[in-house]
């Protein structure tokens, strides 16, 4: 029971401490932090509209946080959730605006989401292939692929996927039937992301394939002796993670923006890593963790509006959360410890 309490208390302490340090940074830069904090809290949850915004912002963070948690649990350092999100959004936009009929019914949303997941999975699998076949460290390849995906989206919305009037760098709007149904601005992506968390938790902790993935993450050489292939399972982990991140891109597209444009991603990709680490890589704990960072992102907008504090301040909080999560004995974070670099891996 005591252990349980500690496990629960330490992430909360990390979250609070990081906000405390960020307040210190704001003070040092000459801002008045109290008014800012008040604006932050009000903007994150002070009204029903604020709550809606927080849930909207939490949804892609939940899906990308799951992507990172899943791959880290499997000993794969996927830093590419942002690129995979964009790849998913790109694939979903292509299917929605080029293949699907403009006047189709509500069934259109299904192929859009599937295309997003497949696009992200393909992008993740690309890093997996580079790792398995060419020995390229997934750390570097996923980071570089983030930059590639961002430029691919930029190219698509100025070129082949640009809107018909060719006025702005954005895609055509999605057909009406391809949009996620919404209830009072809360779209179906919110419960979908929650279900994804349950599925990932089940997959990782309760299935044979989840066991193999964890075994490879925990002790790759021992797993190899047991007949498992760290290369193949690593590629599978990257593809699954990419699928989740790509689904996040499709959900953002079909739930919120309705069009593809630059800056669709909820935050410079690393946010997902903070989400996963604060949750200590447990899929179900990613739910409250994503809610925390979603609230932070939403509140930061109000803070910028009302207290003139740039919302990039949230990235400082994210960075500190990561450091506190891995740097202190906050329970034992089950990152892959026995990490044997294969030949040439950096």
């Amino acid at each position, binding site marked *: 029971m005591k252990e349980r309490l500690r496990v629960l208390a330490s992430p909360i302490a990390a979250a609070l401490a990081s906000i405390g340090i960020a307040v210190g*940074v704001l003070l040092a*830069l*000459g*801002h008045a932090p109290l008014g800012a904090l008040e604006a932050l809290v009000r903007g994150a949850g002070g009204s029903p509209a604020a709550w809606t915004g927080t849930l909207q912002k939490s949804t892609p963070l939940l899906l990308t946080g799951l992507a990172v948690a899943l791959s880290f649990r499997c000993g794969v*350092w996927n*830093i590419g959730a942002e690129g995979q999100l964009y790849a998913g959004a790109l694939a979903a936009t292509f299917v929605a605006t080029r293949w699907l009929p403009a006047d189709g019914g509500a069934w259109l949303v299904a192929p859009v989401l599937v295309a997003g997941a497949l696009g992200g999975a393909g992008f993740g699998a690309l890093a997996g292939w*580079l790792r398995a076949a*060419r*020995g*390229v*460290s997934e*750390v*570097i*390849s996923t*980071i*570089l*692929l983030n*930059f*590639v995906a961002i*430029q*691919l989206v*930029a*190219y698509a919305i*100025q*070129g082949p996927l640009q809107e018909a009037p060719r006025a702005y760098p954005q895609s055509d709007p999605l057909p009406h039937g391809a949009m996620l149904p919404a209830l009072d601005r809360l779209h179906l992506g919110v419960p979908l992301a929650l279900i994804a968390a349950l599925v990932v938790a089940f997959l990782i902790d309760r299935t044979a394939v989840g066991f193999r993935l964890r075994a490879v993450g925990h002790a790759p050489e021992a797993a190899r002796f047991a007949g498992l292939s760290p290369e193949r399972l690593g590629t599978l982990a990257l593809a699954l993670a990419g699928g989740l991140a790509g689904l996040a891109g499709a959900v953002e597209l079909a739930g919120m923006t309705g069009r593809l444009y630059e800056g669709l991603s909820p935050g*410079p990709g*690393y946010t997902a*890593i*903070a989400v996963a*680490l604060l949750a200590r890589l447990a899929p179900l704990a990613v739910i409250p963790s994503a809610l925390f960072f979603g609230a932070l992102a939403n509140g930061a907008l109000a803070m910028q509006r009302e207290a003139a*504090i*740039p919302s*990039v*301040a*949230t*990235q*400082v*909080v*994210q*960075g*500190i959360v*990561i*450091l506190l999560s*891995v*740097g*202190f004995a906050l329970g034992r974070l089950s*990152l892959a410890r026995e*990490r044997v*670099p294969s*030949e*040439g*891996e*950096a």
Partner: protein
Amino acid sequence: MDALLEAALRLATPLLFAALGELLVERSGVVNIGIEGLMLTGAFAAFAVAVTTASPGLGVAAGVSASVALGMVFAWFVVLRSADQIVVGTAVNLLALGATGLALRSLFPGGIPAAPVVGPLEIPGLASLPVVGTALFGATPFVPTSLAATLCVALFLARTRAGLRWRAVGEVARAADAEGVRVAAVRIGAIAVGAAFAGIAGAMLPLAQSNTFSEGMTAGRGFIALAIVIFGRWNAIGCAAAALFFGATTALQFRLQARGLAVPYPLALALPYVLTLAVLAIATGRARAPRDLGRPYRREAH
């Protein structure tokens, strides 16, 4: 031809400084993917101090100091707390991106000023040397300094006792420890020196290349430097050759675009990253990393 060589060297120099820093860190057994954040911190500190004091020299000093300071945060977590190096490096990148963006908008609310520029070294005769004169000595002193630094790093690692200990820590930390080498001290020292190099690499972006600072202006150069270390097979001369290859490719790309080659701009921007991936896919298999790279060393662990 002269102009192309000059451009190639100019574009290669920040990559080379960053790669030399990362090389030193990795030869001691630590991967610092926070190098991108260290560069960005160095770039901002150099910019802010150079603008305030109107002295680019002080700017460079500030860039190096700020990068080393953040590097020490990284060192504390990865060496003394044995935290995972990839994760802490990511946190350093996030912190740097957030803190520099926040500081930029807080310190310069009225708009981003121009930075004073580091002028060329005025050593009579050198700039008029045939072929390499202008390329090496015509522009900023960073270019010749980076080449001199390459030789120093190469000699240090290959020919000095300290360099031998440094490599021993990266290859077999436990054996080095048994021989009386202080593993933690060497690694912290390596991270500090590596951060200083990253600071120079960052400082030269606002003070010698674009004359101003913009958010996230390092644009992945630190990550490309990580790839250059692999491509350069963990040796200084190899890193210089790899950095020059990247510089030359980028210079050539600019040249072709200026001549009106019809490549859509975003695809041109993606080229360095695709090129880096392609180079890694070809070169990684044949390079050998230091054996203990990425492994925290705990004395009591067996």
